[in-house]
């Protein structure tokens, strides 16, 4: 029984089209536009802080627990390497949360009298996410650090 080979390329073409279409559909599902809508807010917040200037990774250590049982009160510690002298000190530390409804969490303003550029506080985390700390130095440069965490119970949008 001879197979009619004239039909094979036809079928292959349609299979190929279907494959491309399904790849496109899957690609749309993973579109950055839907998954990282909040990340854009965070990126914009960081740009507002730096005024468009480059932000280098380094000098900033951000510590949050890798697994958080309840996002209502999460201990966060940020430290920036700096001699904190009158000519070389950290002017401000901004903390930005990629996964919160509002990206800014706090801004701390320091002076040479601060001694260290180290802040510990307790923050709300709405979801598993990356948190950023941006340090603004007195010489106008910007440095950043980040930490990732898994949050098992949300902080911002629960029902009373």
């Amino acid at each position, binding site marked *: 029984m001879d197979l009619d080979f004239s039909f094979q390329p036809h079928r292959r073409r349609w299979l190929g089209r279907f494959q491309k279409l399904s790849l496109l559909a899957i690609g749309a599902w993973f579109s950055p536009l839907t998954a990282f809508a909040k990340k854009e807010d965070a990126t914009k917040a960081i740009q507002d802080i730096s005024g468009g200037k480059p932000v280098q990774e380094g000098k900033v250590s951000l510590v949050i627990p890798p697994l958080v049982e309840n996002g*209502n*009160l*999460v201990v966060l510690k940020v430290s920036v390497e700096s001699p904190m002298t009158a000519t070389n000190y950290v002017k401000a530390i901004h903390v930005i*949360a990629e996964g*919160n*409804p*509002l990206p*800014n*969490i*706090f*801004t*701390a*303003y*320091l*002076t040479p*009298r*601060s*001694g*260290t550029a*180290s*802040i*510990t*506080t*307790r*923050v*709300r985390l*709405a979801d598993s996410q990356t948190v950023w700390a941006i340090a603004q130095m007195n010489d106008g440069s910007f440095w950043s650090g980040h930490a990732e965490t898994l949050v098992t119970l949300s*902080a*911002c*949008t*629960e*029902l*009373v």
Partner: protein
Amino acid sequence: MSKTSRTSITMPASAKKGAIIEIRAIAQHDMESGFRYTESGKAIARDIIRMFTCTYNDIEVFKMDFYPGMGANPLVIFTTVATETGTLEFKWSGDDGYEAINQAHITVS
């Protein structure tokens, strides 16, 4: 939320000149984020502390802006250099006219 509330300061009462001291400041405040809803679906209005300042003999040595992402009963641990004997004054201010003030004295030798 009421217009003022309890606050607590933990810091050393004395230090050597030039030493870096750790200050813990905590305020009793719900820090209502504005993202919560009642059971009937009504939004609960935002009501948070917006700013915290620390002055050392009337000179501001530390300031912090709080946003809705700060947790309830906010705690801040920061450092300052013990420059001279005197009074550190801590002030919290926020929505709905909230204001709280606390003080601590330090002897610097």
